[in-house]
């Protein structure tokens, strides 16, 4: 009951890369297919929670520290705001990369077309920063809940009224 069996650990560590690749695919192709930053971030965070459930919170807490996750989340939020402020030449959230020939600046032809990755303007960069923020935030929340519940078992009884 305390330690999960070997079958659960093996299957969880086999299937974890596939979940991560699938989640990152949905984040990056957010401007061509249904999906985007929030959805792909939730999928990848559920992959990390699968590892947390299979291996127990004591082993995962040695590899992933909460301060690293906090730094990743702050990087995601700051890059989202700086991408919004960089288009301040016209308005606050101006799409300054669509139409220019920098990196994501092609305009697709009107109507149905197979999607091209080069389009989108500032949208794929915003998708990646929001996805990073959601991954780090959801993993930190579940890790904090698991570690706190583990600590509660070691106290000298709870206070009854």
């Amino acid at each position: 009951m305390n330690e999960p069996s070997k079958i659960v650990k093996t299957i969880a560590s086999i299937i974890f890369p596939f979940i991560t690749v699938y989640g990152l695919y949905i984040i990056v192709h957010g401007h061509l297919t249904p999906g985007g930053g929030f959805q792909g971030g939730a999928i990848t965070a559920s992959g990390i929670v699968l590892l947390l459930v299979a291996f127990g919170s004591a082993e995962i807490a040695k590899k992933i520290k909460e301060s690293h996750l906090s730094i990743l989340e702050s990087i995601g939020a700051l890059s989202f705001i700086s991408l919004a402020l960089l288009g301040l030449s016209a308005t606050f959230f101006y799409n300054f990369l669509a139409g220019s020939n920098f990196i994501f600046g092609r305009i697709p032809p009107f109507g149905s077309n197979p999607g091209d990755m080069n389009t989108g303007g500032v949208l794929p960069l915003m998708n990646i920063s929001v996805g990073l923020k959601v991954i780090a935030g959801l993993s930190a929340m579940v890790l904090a809940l698991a570690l706190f519940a583990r600590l509660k078992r070691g106290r000298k009884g709870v206070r009854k009224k």
Partner: protein
Amino acid sequence: MIYNIPYMASAILVIVGLYAVLFKRNLIKIAIGITVLESGVNLFLITLGYRENAVAPIYTNLPEGTSIPEGMTLPVPQALTLTSIVIGVAVLALILSFAVKIYQHYGTLDSREVRRLRE
């Protein structure tokens, strides 16, 4: 009358969630009731923007013969529902963390006995 079934389904979800919030005593059951209530509101928001026999407003590999403004569903209610779902997740996380702290302090999860403001 038979064509308003999605609206009636979301009304039933709101009624079930409201019953769980008003008449149950356990804190975890109240949290589940809040989640069901919020799911009903999201369902209502997204069925407001449906057109009959229409496809999603995405231009990648459209099926043949869809007219461009009239054959697609409205994109703005879908964007508002995305925001509402994320806010529901945030509220549920805070409710559950408070429930864990209350159980550690009082020893019980009954909502009639955790009423004191000062201990």
